[in-house]
């Protein structure tokens, strides 16, 4: 009875991290996408520092959003195919903790590397150095929200592997994150107070951590019930 609430977080986190490390192609695809697009943009648009710096805040956030979206659809589909989802559903403990474990693993594998890579792209886009720390903070918080919301979509579209439906379902929910995320960087570039949009992101994360696992567990049960 003791692990009714806490049971499963660690084992699912550890397992998903191991799976991600073993299957590196999965891990590197969204990151390669993030880097490649970022490299091509200055080549396609003008390589002028002033022009790039104006589009950089929005662009970095769009890239982070799409990279998360690309990777999230596989969060549950493999488990569904090989039967581990059944084992997850008949876990006597609450579903919330294993789900949080899986989403945390997804963030550690996608969101965190994106956050760590972002300064490279910021330099590439000649973003002012004053915006560097706000950007890193906003990406760290924001990608976690993106993982949580994306997982809801992945659970709801489950028997099929996401695709267009997932994008349509999740995109409207991604908008607030996109707006406050790029606003954080933009305010820092303009020399305004960037803490308030960042605080909004943190608030979104707090709400998402509480509500998304509930929605995900309901979605998984529906998916399995056909």
């Amino acid at each position, binding site marked *: 009875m003791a692990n009714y609430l806490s*049971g499963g977080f660690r084992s699912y986190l550890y397992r998903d991290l191991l799976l991600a490390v073993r299957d590196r192609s999965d891990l590197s695809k969204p990151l390669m996408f993030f880097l490649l697009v970022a490299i091509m943009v200055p080549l396609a648009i003008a390589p002028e520092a002033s022009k790039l710096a104006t589009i950089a805040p929005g662009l970095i956030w769009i890239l982070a959003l799409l990279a998360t979206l690309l990777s999230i659809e596989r969060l549950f589909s493999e488990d569904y195919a*090989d039967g581990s989802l059944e*084992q997850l559903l008949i876990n*006597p403990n609450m579903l919330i903790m294993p789900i949080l474990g899986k989403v945390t693993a997804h963030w550690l594998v996608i969101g965190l590397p994106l956050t760590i890579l972002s300064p490279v792209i910021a330099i590439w886009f000649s973003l002012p150095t004053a915006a560097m720390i706000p950007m890193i903070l906003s990406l760290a918080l924001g990608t976690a929200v993106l993982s949580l919301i994306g997982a809801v979509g992945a659970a709801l579209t489950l028997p099929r592997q996401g695709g267009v439906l997932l994008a349509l379902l999740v995109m409207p929910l991604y908008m607030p994150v996109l707006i406050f995320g790029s606003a954080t960087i933009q305010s820092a570039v303009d020399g305004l107070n960037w803490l308030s949009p960042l605080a909004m992101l943190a608030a979104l994360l707090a709400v998402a951590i509480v509500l998304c696992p509930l929605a995900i567990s309901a979605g998984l049960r529906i998916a399995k019930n056909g």
Partner: protein
Amino acid sequence: MPTAFFAVFWHNVFPYFQGLESPLTTHIFLKVENLAFERNDTVLFQPIDFELNAGVALQLEGVNGSGKTTLFQLMTGIFQPSSGQISYCGQSIDNCRYEYLYDVLYIGHQSAVKAALTVEENLRWMSPENTSYEKISAALDAVGLGEYQKIRCANLSAGQKRRVALARLMTSQATLWFLDEPLTSLDKQGVEMVEQCMSQHLKQGGAIVFSSHQDLAQVKTRSYGLEPYVEVA
């Protein structure tokens, strides 16, 4: 009359002093009553009724597509039945979900073995959370995979993967086993090993529901046939 009195005392009263359960009131582990399931407007099988006591193995029989796997998924609460009830120790499983599922081990048709993980890692995450290393390697030795502990499951044969999943029989603490086609792709020794495991479990007071198209040689089983649904006029 005195012998009858003695019998009642011996069977019903005396055991209570010893903290034993009376054989007359032995609780029925699992009771399935009038269970029906409907999917996409088709009813899968004739309503199902059976009881399962400690020490009993029940073999589900039925042609392919008769709904054996669905029945397992109903019994584990993955699906909700459209009518009927499943009770565990006298209570509906919806009311004691935690206690019930804590006591259930379900090895499905898809065995949940991850190809990218090693044999040992697979068994570890499928076992109860604080299973010791010794217990895991003992279980792997018992299923004949002791030397493969560090090998990834992608490199194993289908039968060996099945053995990885079946190693859970040794690490689990559940009393109710639901095994969906446990013998598929196993060799003769594998089948023998599963049978030994099952009879051991029954001796210890466990109960098993399993589906299989072959009969077991060592384990005494009751069988229950799933009939295709026929509408009553």
